């Protein structure tokens, strides 16, 4: 970037400065002997052109919308269109969640993001014994197409994009969405949205798996194939580092394990006979925006550059869209404190800002009361307003990659990329992400980082404002916490009973039998799931049929 003569001058002047600073240090030592990022990357006193690892601007950074996409995936970034403001929401019943979605859309939210309750995420109907106590709690309970129709009642599905946090039974919920849209007269070719569909991180960090890895990967690649032909604008997967980070990983591990999972999905799809440029453009990602501001910005940039290289060099992708790492971001739930909850608004603001400066395509900002319960409407509004402030008042959206060229951010970007690459190589040597998860390697790595962080907090090496410093006895607690009404369970059970009485049960039996048969063979499963859903088979019935054929995953409890 600089000619040799200039660089030499800078180095000389830096050396002189270091000497001069030594005198200052003797009088006034720095706050710590060593500074490092939250992920343990050493941080120097200052960064100058000579700290750079000698990057080549065009090759390593390029321009926005151009390979390797370090500076963003679109040429105009937020000057063209702001990121999608997408608050993850859903609780209790379909009716209740439908009301919340309409409220959020009225408040200026630009995309929907559906949270399902745990029975739905694990493929149990609300009347399953394992569902006791969980119905409607962390998200909306969906048992059949009927519930899905209610969930999107009055929301034109050709005009919103909808993200669904659903993994093991993603194909079933996607089928319900497609059928609901069809009833509104909207064809699958006009649907926009995302299913999370990322089973590998469920095994590693989030826990809503159903089937073993083999059949799970088949369902995922069947979805890739089906969508590329029928739902071309749908993001078929959201390869998620978010939960890996929430489970305690570092930023480096978040990037590494997420991209390693991404590699596993691409390989599975290639092995299933798909062509890389047919499915890769619809792969999307999901990251966490955590505390260390610059490290986070660098993380997003490093992830983009790393993925572009992997797709181009390892998988010979040709289409530009196959090379672009497009991602959703959520601020870090694990950093929210129950102590002085109003401080969470500021944490979320900083984290959201890092996501925007890192070039996110969509963003969820957490609400201040989420260390207590699901967010209240009031708290969600402040969280959404935080994004609107960043977008419309701060000016940061007016140019692409505003921190590009910062000596520090570029150096951190290089460091994160290198360290993540080293992890990915290690996982490659183990035989890939599936093996690494099955052996408990990823889980163990995450757990060690989580424990190290906890120890740092307890020794106050890591300060958490309001928790281990600047505490305040009797600080006000949030009011208006959201409570899920106990009657949700009863009404869900009543709905199920009515459904089973009113639907054509012979049709259900035959569509479910066809699905079971399809699962034993190798044909694409999605059309059979689509038929079962259309006949109002329940989520539990469909997943049970697949359980019979595929079996269930039993996790190794690592400690």
């Amino acid at each position, binding site marked *: 970037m600089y000619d040799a003569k200039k660089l030499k001058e800078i180095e000389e002047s830096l050396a002189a400065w270091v000497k001069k600073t030594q005198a200052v240090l003797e009088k006034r030592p720095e706050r710590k002997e060593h500074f490092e990022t939250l992920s343990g990357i050493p941080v120097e006193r200052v960064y100058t052109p000579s700290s750079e690892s000698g990057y080549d601007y065009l090759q390593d950074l390029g321009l926005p919308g151009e390979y390797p996409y370090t500076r963003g995936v679109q040429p105009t970034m937020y000057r063209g269109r702001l990121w999608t403001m997408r608050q993850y929401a859903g609780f209790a019943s379909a009716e209740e969640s439908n009301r919340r979605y309409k409220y959020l859309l009225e408040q200026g939210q630009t995309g929907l993001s559906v949270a399902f309750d745990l029975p739905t995420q694990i493929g149990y109907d609300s009347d399953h014994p394992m569902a006791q106590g969980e119905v409607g709690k962390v998200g909306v309970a969906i048992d059949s197409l009927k519930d899905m129709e209610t969930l999107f009642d009055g929301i034109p599905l050709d005009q919103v994009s909808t993200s669904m946090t659903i993994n093991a039974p993603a194909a079933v919920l996607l089928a319900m969405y497609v059928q609901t849209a069809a009833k509104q007269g909207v064809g699958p070719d006009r649907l926009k949205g995302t299913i999370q569909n990322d089973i590998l991180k469920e095994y590693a960090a989030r826990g809503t798996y159903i089937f073993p890895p083999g059949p799970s990967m088949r369902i995922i690649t069947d979805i890739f194939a089906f969508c590329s032909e029928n739902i071309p604008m749908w993001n078929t997967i959201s390869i998620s580092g978010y939960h890996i980070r929430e489970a305690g990983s570092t930023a480096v591990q978040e990037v590494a394990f997420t991209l390693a999972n991404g590699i596993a999905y691409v390989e599975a799809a290639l092995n299933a006979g798909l062509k890389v440029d047919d499915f890769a453009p619809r792969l999307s990602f999901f990251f966490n925006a955590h505390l260390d501001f610059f490290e986070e910005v660098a993380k997003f940039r490093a992830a983009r550059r790393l993925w572009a290289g992997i797709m181009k060099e390892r998988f010979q992708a040709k289409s530009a869209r196959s090379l672009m790492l497009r991602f959703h971001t959520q601020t870090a739930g694990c950093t929210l404190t129950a102590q002085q909850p109003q401080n969470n608004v500021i944490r979320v603001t900083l984290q959201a800002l890092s996501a925007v400066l890192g070039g996110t395509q969509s963003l969820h900002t957490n609400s201040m009361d989420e260390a207590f*319960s699901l967010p209240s409407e009031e708290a969600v509004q402040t969280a959404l307003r935080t994004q609107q402030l960043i977008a419309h008042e701060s000016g940061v959206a007016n140019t692409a990659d505003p921190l590009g060229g910062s000596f520090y951010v570029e150096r951190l970007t290089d460091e994160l990329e290198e360290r993540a690459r080293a992890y990915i190589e290690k996982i490659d040597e183990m035989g890939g992400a599936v093996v690494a998860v099955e052996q408990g390697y990823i889980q163990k790595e995450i*757990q060690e980082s989580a*424990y190290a962080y906890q120890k740092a907090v307890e020794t106050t090496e890591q300060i958490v404002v309001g928790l281990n410093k600047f505490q305040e006895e009797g600080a006000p607690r949030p009011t208006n916490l959201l409570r899920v009404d106990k009657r949700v369970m009863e009404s869900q059970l009543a709905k199920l009973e009515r459904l089973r009485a009113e639907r054509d049960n012979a049709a259900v039996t035959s569509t479910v039998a066809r699905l079971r048969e399809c699962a034993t063979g190798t044909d694409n499963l999605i059309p059979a799931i689509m038929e079962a859903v259309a006949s109002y088979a329940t989520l539990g019935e469909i997943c049970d049929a697949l359980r019979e054929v595929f079996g269930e995953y039993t996790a190794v409890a690592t400690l």
Partner: protein
Amino acid sequence: MTKKKIRVLAAKPGLDGHDRGIKVISCALRDAGMEVIYTGLRQTPEQIVQAAIQEDVDVIAMSVLSGAHGYLFPRVMDLLEEAGVTDVLVIGGGIIPEEDIQHLKDVGIRAIFGPGTPTTDIVQFIEENTPR
């Protein structure tokens, strides 16, 4: 004579997959000299009680972040009573609204530890309250 190690069953009842907290606490209890048996995810109350009896534990530490504590914790207490287990210290943690805590204590959960609790507090509580 060496003191017998406190045996703890760390349990995840229900469908909740958030296991960062329980694992971190398990590590801390282990570092504090206790023996920790971790159940893994998705345990029914029946499985937890059975494991507690089989492993002959002194303490059951449960974690739920999904909001299902109101059903799951009391259910475990009922089953312990049915099985005639009365000398086990049961504690809980997770995302548990303050107004729910009294009810959980009423059914016999001795303490509820919320987000931000130092692991040292939990170690101390177990050491002071485990029936020996």
